[in-house]
């Protein structure tokens, strides 16, 4: 049933000969076509969780399952969109996408066709041949998202993809992503610091505690799909926001919410 599952994951790092526990018995899941968000204080271990899912690191305890199979420590099963766009400066926009698809095993011609087709669909075909440095931050993130979307992988992991954008661009990007995602319905695990962003985009939210991270609460977001652009005006939205704020401990979780 669930595409991605973390079972009783614990992870600690050793720094200056002291052990820091980062993740403490985390159990979460992402269903088929579900948009799930992790929200938690800075340093609580969200990116660490992604590194475990990506197989770049291995947990001290627990398992990572994708499509029901134990894939703890196995790489190459997810697609990923980091906070910085991380486009390769020496490749054109098109080649950035093609290169990622090739890493995922696609043939060059096929990858090219799909990149060009999709760039046209998101109306960025005019920059297909440009180098990333001429693109605005928002455009770079769109390309980065498209690159993640096109990878033929079961789960998309998005780690604070909009954190580096200004508030206006960010809202615009949220709408753009929402529309694209509602068309595609991929399984997404998303990380954000913004409660509004989480409530606007997700089906479910896991609220995490400060390190060592535990799941404080799992919230099912009750708003219908497709999401209305003014979903934030609903009383239920405000109520949920207040709940999450309280969980994160007044104020400190909301510092960069918009």
């Amino acid at each position, binding site marked *: 049933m669930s595409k991605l599952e973390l079972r009783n994951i614990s992870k600690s790092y050793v720094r200056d000969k002291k052990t820091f526990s980062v993740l403490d018995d985390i159990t979460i899941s992402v269903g088929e076509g579900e948009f799930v968000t992790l929200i938690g204080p800075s340093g609580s271990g969200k990116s660490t969780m992604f590194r475990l899912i990506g197989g770049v690191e291995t947990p001290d305890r627990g398992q990572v399952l994708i499509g029901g199979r134990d894939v703890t420590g196995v790489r190459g099963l997810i697609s990923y969109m980091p906070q910085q766009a991380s486009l390769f400066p*020496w490749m054109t926009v098109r080649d950035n996408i093609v290169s990622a698809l090739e*890493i995922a095993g696609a043939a060059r011609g096929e990858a090219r066709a799909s990149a060009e087709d999709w760039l046209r669909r998101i109306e960025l075909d005019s920059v297909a041949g440009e180098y990333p440095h001429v693109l605005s931050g928002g455009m770079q993130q769109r390309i980065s998202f498209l690159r993640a979307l096109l990878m033929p992988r079961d789960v998309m992991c998005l780690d604070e993809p909009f954190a580096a954008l200004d508030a206006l661009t960010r809202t615009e990007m949220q709408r753009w992503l929402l529309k694209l995602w509602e068309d595609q319905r991929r399984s997404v695990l998303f990380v954000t610091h913004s409660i509004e962003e989480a409530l606007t985009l997700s089906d479910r939210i896991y609220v995490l505690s400060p390190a060592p991270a535990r799941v404080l609460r799992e919230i099912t977001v009750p708003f219908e799909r497709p999401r209305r652009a003014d979903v934030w005006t609903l009383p239920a939205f405000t109520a949920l926001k207040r709940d999450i704020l309280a969980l994160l401990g007044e104020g400190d979780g909301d510092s960069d919410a918009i």
Partner: protein
Amino acid sequence: MGNNVWRRVWPPAVSFVAFVALWQLSCSIFKIDPWILPSPAKIAVHLAEDAPAWSRHLAATLRLVLSGLALGVATGIAVAVVLHLMPLVRSAVSPFIIAFQNVPIIALGPLLMIWFGFGLTPKLILLTLVCFFPVAWSMLAGLGRTEPHLREYLEMIGSTKWDILRRLELPASLPFLVSGLKIAVTYSVSTAMWAEWLGADKGIGYYLIIKFKGYDITAVFGAVICIVTLSLALYGLAALLERRIVYWRPRSRAGRAGDAK
């Protein structure tokens, strides 16, 4: 666009012309003996007259320099990649390479002559060694200094070591490789001169020594001009290559965007 090029070219052009004029004038006003300092005009005339001789020697030197550069750059790149991929080998070998690099070429040149005779081989080896080091070391630095967030991205999507080398490390190290190449180019000409001075039967360095021995100071100046021009031309080519290779970098100044083509 033409305006931009002109603005960059005219100050050195004017100072160069002024320098030559001053030189010419002092030679005629103070009646300086051409044995001591020949005038630019005399040198030019001599260069024109002796063109068949010096151009043959210059071509021989150019062949030597280019072959040495090619061999040095190729081994430099290969060694850099191997050392980068094998940290253990790197830590085992790099002290030797650095120590070896500090063997003075004054000692190395004659030794190579003793071992390999006076032909092309010892000169080529010397040039290769001299060009190898700056290329290998800057390339190695470039391979190890890739953007951490790009590496993290590649690891997260499950790239193999080979993917990381091909799609990140090699392209990212190209600018480093070219700066190494620029250093190698400047070393290569002076090393070729040194090699030809040690023993040769052709080459512009050999030509210079012959003319020195014959007290033909005008010809010596001519040879110096040939050598300097060769050096500058090679360096210019390397600089051009650099621009070609790092095309993706945003141009730092608006003025440079125009003359890139």
